Every structure is written in structure tokens, then in C-alpha cells.
């Protein structure tokens, strides 16, 4: 851990959180984006489209050398000069040398993230060439001396008043803060630039191997001017932008604008191959193919899928962390989830080390990614790399390696905590205020007390009368259900018994390992996976039930992934994954028993909060709603039902409590606006967060697990 770097990062987070205007703008954009994106994809099968892109781009990665050769041959045959730049410096010096050779005073640029990546403008200025950004957002940023805070909308963090002030300096007169007027000012100010410039610089959204040409996907028309008027055209393009054929390019173009901004298509798609006519002669076309870490990324088995990115920026649009702090905090040059990964490979691990922890792990980016990249998984693997490089911190090291791996020690400490906490709980189930330097933990939400007796003890005393059990299932409680909310586990037994299912609790089960994994300690996670596989398979259960979707993902996905190369464990990990299922999904899908609860509940207005890992991990969201409705409650949907609540485990407790608090506030606002008196969910972590927030607000809305609501309903059964 680098203390100075962490402190500087903390300051940036604090500053961003103290800018409500920015948060409001990013939230509104996120909402409007989802609406227009939904319209743009009407009648199209997004899952099919994105798996097509993923397959195509993966093929490009595998056949990259051949495709690159084909592209270069075709481009050169069409009169282009191609330069392969190994590093950002190579690319910059090639372009700066060219500018010098041409005696270029002015270069007009259209938007290019690759040129932001290499800091090309600085290199050009040093060579005596002024670089003029012509994309409106980029020009604003250039005038302000900043960097983009979004890959598609670089100035999304600025307001018309800021822009008016910047433009007034350029024109020397007071420009009114009216958007249409400001756009006209930009048009007039930049027009002469295209006519005067010696060089036009663009990026490229796609490079087509079949033709040796590029495609530019733009709205403003500046790339068309920059690639037409100056005598020299320089294209700076990352080597991952290659596609084999024109059809493949069409597939990318079909999805890119829809997923980026919700447009069916941008105003302009421009296909350029070779040195086209320019005045009385031919254009001088230079294509600079930028590697700068991309080949290294292609070699990384855990991260290489990130090369499938088509740079739509959607992972930021939907990210609750991005919406809270913006791209200047949650990014380096590239922003959002993909930005974390690209930063690590293009700008070095050190520049990625802080933002890699800023991901809350809600998987909203994974659900929206047009290239089907599992961004969360890659981010976790980077966290592990950084954990290995820099260490995970002494405290975490102690907790994970010395305590958690030793189940008996871990559980005795938790039991001891239930006694030691007495002075602060004052005998209640929740902690409202913590003393001294812990006080910030309970400023914005209460915390649950550690239960007097954990579920693992209580469940042994609960009688189960199931005469002919349909199934015998093992309950995987997870730490929260076991030590914080044992009543939830007991309710699960009640519900299962009513469905003729017998439940037992394997006593040797331990933490699922996700907290360690999220902190970059994979070794502990693997050790815990083994302990749990042994514990859960020992009694040969028909199914393993979970009440926490994060644990579900660990048992269903992570254990298999951790142990796939270990023949002693791989088969058993898969066996456990195959029989693990979340409780609500089990009732509806395995038992087909949603009707059993029909109209039993004392009807209440209930809204449902989708837990990130249940909806976007296990793919379960219809089932709990079906159970709530069929049991007789009135289900009312809140806005952003599937947006993260801000819990994220240690994210809200230690690493980013300030961001977590803001995300929780959004959720509490949506719950209140729904008018429901109860918010249901299927995750003890979300319960901790939402219940704690509601309680601190003094709200009368209750937060319950779906299983608890079902157990309540059963009490009304005669």
C-alpha cells in the first residue's frame, strides 16, 4: 500500500462527494441513457448481439498477427503509410517528427481516446505544433486544461456556465450560458482551424483487415472535416480495434451507438481506405498502430477479454460508483470499469491501484457490456495482482490468513464479540452508535449486533417434523445469516419444512471466502473453498441452499474457478456448484411450490430490491417477486430496483464508506418514493445496509428477506 497515493485518492473522493451538482447530472444521464438505450434496442436480441461480438473479437485476439499483417498490406496498397508503435512514446515521436517535417503550425484533432492515452498534444506542442481539439467536449476540456471524465462525453462533468466562461475567454466577449449559442460559438471559432491546419488527426473506431481501411463513428462532423481539409491525415488507432471483415465492422457499428448513448446510429459513419484525393493531389495518410500494453494484455489469461471492448463507455453510464464520484476519480485516462483494467496495462499498475478498489462489485457493467466482458472478474484478478505486489495491509492479512482460515478461532472470536459488544448494543439487536474512532461506522446506518447464539447452535434445537421429506438439503448460512441474522435461517427451516424439505446445517462450514477474494487475498479464498467443499458435501445432501447471493456465487462459480486445475478438487467443486441454489429459486424452480403460499400473507405494499449477485450473478429476479405476489402482497416496483444498495461488504465498512453511504441514500430515496411499507430482498448484506439506513432515518418501512416474509405468511395458515 502506498500511503501518499492513497491519501491523495481519498482527497479526490471527498471532493467529488462534496459536488452534488455533478452527482445529479450523472444520475440524470444514467436514467435518460437507460430509456433511450431501451428504445434503441427494441426488437433486437442484445444477448445474441453481444455474444456475436465477443466471439468475433476473441477470434481477432487469437488471429491477431495474421489480421494485422493483412490490414497493413491492404492499407499500404491503398497508399497509406503504416507505423507500428510499440509504446506511447513511439507513437508520439513518430507523429511529432512528421509534424516537424511538414513544418506544421496547426493540427486539428477529432476525438481520440488513444491520443489521450499517449498524451499526444503535449508531444506536438513540444515539436512546435499547436494541437486544436475540435470535438466540442474535447475542446471544452482542452480550454479548461483538464482530461475527459467520460470516454464518449468528455465534458459530462461540466455545466453550461463553466463552458460560457471558457468560451468568453476565447472570444474576448461575454458569451451567454445558452447551450445553442455556445454550440454556435464553437462552430464559428473552430471552422477556420480546419482550413488553416496542416495536419488532421483522428482516431478510429474500427480497423478492417479485409480492406485496410478504418471506420469513424461520430456525431458532430468534425472528423469528416479533419480528415478532408488538411493535406495530411494521421490516424492513431489501438491494435485491438481490428476486425476481419466489413460484416464484422457492421456488427460493431450496429451495437456501438445504441449502447453508448442510446442512438440508433451516429450522424456519421465514415469509411476511409487509403490516400484519397485532396485538392489537386493525393492525401498523405499515416496510420499509427498503437500497442502500448495491448500485446501484454492479450497474453494475460485472466484479463485478455478486456481487449474485446469496443469503447462504448456504457460500463460507466450504469456504474453507481461512477455516478457518485465521476470519471476524474473513478478513472485515470480511461474511466469506469474498463478504465481500471486498461489503466493497469496501458499506464501501469500503480495508476490503477486505487481505482481497482473503488469497484463495488455490483456487476451492472457486466450486464450492459456489448462485448460480454466479465469486468468484475477481471477487476478481482487485478486486485489479487496488486495484493501480491503491494500487500493487502497488515490488519486484513491477520484477519484473513490467521483468523478466517482457522474456522474454530474465527467462530470463537465472533462468539466472544457477541459478549464484548454488550456495552454498545445496550441489549438491543442493532448498534446505533459506536464510540470513539469507530463512530463514523454508525453515522449513517445502524449495524446489527452479533447474535447471542449463532444459527449453527439454534438450528440444532429447532424441531423439524417432516414425515416423508421430498429432499434433504444442507443450508449454507454464510457469516451474516449465521452470526448476525440467525432468525433468517430458522425461518428458512420453517418454510422448507412446510414444503416437505428437511434442512440440516453442516457445522464445519466456514466463510465463503469472498471478503478475502475482494481484498486481493486469493490464497485464503482457495483454502476456504476447500474447507467448505468438504463440509457441505460430507452429509451427501440433495441440494445446498443459500440465503446470501454472494455466497451463492462463491459456491456456484468461484470455487470451481479456484480449483479447476486441481484434479483432487475440481470434480467435487463442480459437484457442489451443481447442487447449490438460492432459497427463492429453489422454491419456484426445483419445488414448483410458489402456490403453497397463495394468499396466506396479511397483504402489505411490498417493493423488491434486487441484490446484485442474485440478479446479475445467479440470474434470479422473477422468482422472489413471484413468491411475494402469490403469497398475497401487493408488489410495487421501485425505480432502479436492481441498482446496488451500496453494501459491498468491506467496501461500505472500511474501503469506501463515503461512497457506500451515497449509494445507500439513492436506494432509500427510491424505496420511499415507491410508497411501500416493506422492502423485500434476498441478501443479508443488503439487509444490513438497507435496514441500517432505514433505521437511522427513523423510517417505518421494514426491510425483510423474502424467506422471512414467507415464514410470516405461513403463520397465518390454519
Amino acid at each position, binding site marked *: 500500500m502506498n500511503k501518499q497515493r492513497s491519501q491523495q485518492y481519498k482527497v479526490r473522493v471527498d471532493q467529488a462527494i462534496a459536488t452534488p451538482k455533478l452527482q445529479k*447530472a450523472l444520475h440524470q444521464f444514467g436514467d435518460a441513457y437507460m430509456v433511450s438505450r431501451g428504445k434503441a434496442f427494441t426488437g433486437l436480441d442484445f444477448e445474441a448481439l453481444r455474444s456475436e461480438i465477443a466471439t468475433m473479437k476473441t477470434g481477432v485476439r487469437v488471429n491477431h498477427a495474421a489480421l494485422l499483417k493483412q490490414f497493413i498490406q491492404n492499407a499500404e496498397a491503398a497508399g497509406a503509410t503504416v507505423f507500428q508503435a510499440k509504446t506511447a512514446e513511439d507513437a508520439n515521436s513518430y507523429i511529432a517528427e512528421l509534424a516537424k517535417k511538414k513544418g506544421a503550425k496547426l493540427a486539428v484533432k477529432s476525438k481520440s481516446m488513444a491520443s489521450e492515452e499517449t498524451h499526444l498534444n503535449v508531444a506536438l506542442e513540444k515539436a512546435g505544433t499547436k494541437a486544436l481539439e475540435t470535438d466540442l467536449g474535447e475542446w471544452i476540456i482542452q480550454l479548461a486544461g483538464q482530461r475527459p471524465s467520460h470516454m464518449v462525453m*468528455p465534458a459530462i462533468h461540466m455545466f453550461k456556465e463553466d463552458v460560457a466562461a471558457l468560451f468568453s475567454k476565447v472570444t474576448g466577449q461575454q458569451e451567454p450560458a445558452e447551450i445553442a449559442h455556445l454550440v454556435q460559438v464553437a462552430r464559428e471559432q473552430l471552422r477556420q482551424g480546419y482550413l488553416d491546419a496542416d495536419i488532421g488527426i483522428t482516431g478510429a473506431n474500427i480497423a478492417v483487415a479485409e480492406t485496410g481501411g478504418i471506420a469513424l463513428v461520430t456525431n458532430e*462532423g468534425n472528423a469528416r472535416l479533419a480528415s478532408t481539409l488538411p493535406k495530411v491525415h494521421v490516424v492513431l488507432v489501438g491494435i485491438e480495434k481490428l476486425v476481419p471483415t*466489413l460484416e464484422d465492422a*457492421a456488427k460493431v457499428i450496429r451495437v456501438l451507438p445504441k449502447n453508448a448513448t442510446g442512438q440508433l446510429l451516429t450522424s456519421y459513419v*465514415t469509411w476511409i481506405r487509403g490516400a484519397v484525393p485532396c485538392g489537386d493531389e493525393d492525401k498523405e495518410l499515416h496510420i499509427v498502430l498503437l500497442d502500448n500494453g495491448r500485446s501484454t494484455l492479450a497474453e494475460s489469461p485472466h484479463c485478455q477479454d478486456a481487449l474485446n471492448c469496443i469503447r462504448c463507455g456504457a460500463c460507466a453510464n450504469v456504474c453507481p460508483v461512477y455516478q457518485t464520484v465521476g470519471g476524474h476519480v473513478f478513472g485515470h485516462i480511461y474511466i469506469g470499469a474498463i478504465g481500471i483494467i486498461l489503466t493497469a496495462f496501458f499506464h501501469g499498475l500503480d495508476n490503477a491501484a486505487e481505482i481497482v478498489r473503488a469497484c463495488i462489485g455490483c456487476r451492472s457493467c457486466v450486464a450492459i457490456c456489448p462485448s460480454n466482458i466479465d469486468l468484475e472478474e477481471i477487476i478481482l484478478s487485478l486486485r489479487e495482482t496488486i495484493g501480491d505486489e503491494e500487500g493487502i495491509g497488515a490488519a486484513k492479512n491477520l484477519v484473513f490468513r490467521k483468523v478466517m482460515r482457522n474456522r474454530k478461532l474465527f467462530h470463537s472470536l465472533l462468539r466472544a464479540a457477541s459478549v464484548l459488544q454488550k456495552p454498545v448494543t445496550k441489549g438491543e439487536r442493532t448498534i446505533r452508535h459506536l464510540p470513539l474512532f469507530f463512530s463514523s461506522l454508525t453515522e449513517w446506518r445502524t449495524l446489527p449486533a452479533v447474535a447471542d447464539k449463532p444459527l449453527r447452535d439454534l438450528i440444532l434445537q429447532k424441531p423439524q417434523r417432516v414425515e416423508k421429506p421430498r429432499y434433504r438439503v444442507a443450508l449454507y448460512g454464510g457469516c451474516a445469516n449465521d452470526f448476525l441474522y440467525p432468525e433468517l435461517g430458522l425461518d428458512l427451516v420453517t418454510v422448507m419444512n412446510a414444503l416437505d424439505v428437511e434442512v440440516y446445517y453442516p457445522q464445519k462450514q466456514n466463510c465463503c471466502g469472498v471478503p478475502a477474494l475482494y481484498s486481493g487475498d486469493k490464497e485464503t479464498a482457495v483454502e476456504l473453498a476447500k474447507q467448505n467443499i468438504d463440509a457441505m458435501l460430507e452429509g451427501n445432501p440433495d441440494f445446498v441452499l443459500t440465503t446470501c447471493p454472494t455466497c451463492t456465487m462463491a459456491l456456484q462459480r468461484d470455487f470451481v474457478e479456484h480449483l479447476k486445475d486441481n484434479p483432487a478438487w475440481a470434480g467435487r467443486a463442480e459437484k457442489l456448484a451443481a447442487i447449490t441454489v438460492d432459497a427463492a429459486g429453489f422454491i419456484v424452480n426445483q419445488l414448483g411450490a410458489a402456490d403453497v403460499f397463495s394468499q396466506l400473507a396479511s397483504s402489505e405494499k411490498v417493493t423488491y430490491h434486487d441484490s446484485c449477485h442474485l440478479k446479475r450473478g445467479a440470474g434470479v429476479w422473477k422468482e422472489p417477486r413471484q413468491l411475494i405476489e402469490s403469497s398475497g402482497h401487493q408488489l410495487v416496483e421501485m425505480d432502479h430496483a436492481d441498482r446496488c444498495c451500496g453494501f459491498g461488504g468491506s467496501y461500505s465498512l472500511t474501503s469506501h464508506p463515503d461512497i457506500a453511504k451515497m449509494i445507500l441514500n439513492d436506494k432509500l430515496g427510491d424505496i420511499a418514493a415507491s410508497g411501500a411499507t416493506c422492502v423485500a430482498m434476498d441478501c443479508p448484506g443488503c439487509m444490513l445496509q438497507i435496514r441500517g439506513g432505514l433505521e437511522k432515518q427513523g423510517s417505518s418501512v421494514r426491510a425483510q428477506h423474502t424467506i422471512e416474509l414467507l415464514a410470516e405468511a405461513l403463520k397465518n395458515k390454519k
Partner: protein
Amino acid sequence: MDLLKQFSAVAEAAGAVLIDCQNPAAAVALIAERAATGGVLLPVSASCERAQLAEQLKKAGVSLLPVDRVQAADAVVGVTSACFAIADTGSLVLESTAEDVRLASTLPTHHFVLLDRSKVVADGLAAIEPLRRMHQQSPRNYIAYITGPSRTADIERVLTIGVHGPKQLTILLLDDWSSDFLEM
């Protein structure tokens, strides 16, 4: 004609104005009306030559500017044909390798496009066949898909029309204008 209908609706939603023209004379009248206050760029193209569009426009009192970089910047109106259109995105496809086509479709504030009603393909994938033939026809290419006028949402995400390219895009639909999907 379903594809034409779809194209028209989507192009209009993207901010283009579509006008049905009975014949080229009707198109000439519309352009002349708009060009009353300034010069017009009319790049050379097979379809426009066949219809003697330049002569017709001059007769209607339009001042045609030479299509070069110096004068092009002052033009108010650019007139081009389109090779074909794409229904699902409301886009026009312009073979713009000749520089004068690019000047006429980027610099003036108003871009008129003449399109034969029968030349509409379903979607971006269907557009690839003629696009590939364009690539085979000439070794160097600059091909543009144009969908509505130039736009930006870079200030407070408010959609604003006409940043660097044309502020108005008018599509004039004609019969028997051109049947070749590669012809401008």
C-alpha cells in the same frame, strides 16, 4: 414499400426533412428557394449530370460556386445525390471519394440529398454487399453514412443540432433518378 416507409420515419426521427418530389424540376424549385440568399455547391455526379441538374439550377437563378476549398467555405447549400439508403437507421450512403462530394456535404449549413425511392436496403448488414462492391470498384475510398444533421450533446447532454457539419439535412425522394446502388 415498407423499407422506404421505415427509412423515412427513422430519418425524420433523426432530424432529417423528407420531401417527396414528383420530378427533378420540383427538387430544383425547392433548392432554388433555399439558395436565394447564397451560393450552392454541386459536385459532379452521374445522376445529376443525367438530369442536367446544374443547368436547371442555373436557370432557376441559383448561383453555383466552383467546388474548391476557398469558395466552398462560403457556400450556404450543398447538393449531392446518395448511392442508397439504409432503412433501420435512416441513413444515406454517399460515395465521397471525390473531394468535392465531401466539401459539399460538410461545409454548407444546408445539405440537400437526392435519393431514388427504390434504393433502400434493410439494415447495416444488408448495406455491406454494395459497400464491398464500392471497395472493389476503386482502390481508395471515402464512404459516408449520413444520418440526420450534425449533432452534439456535449454540453449538459442536451441534444443540439449543427455543430461542425450541416445544420439541416433535406432528403428529396425521386422516382427514376438512379437504379445503380453504386452511383452517386
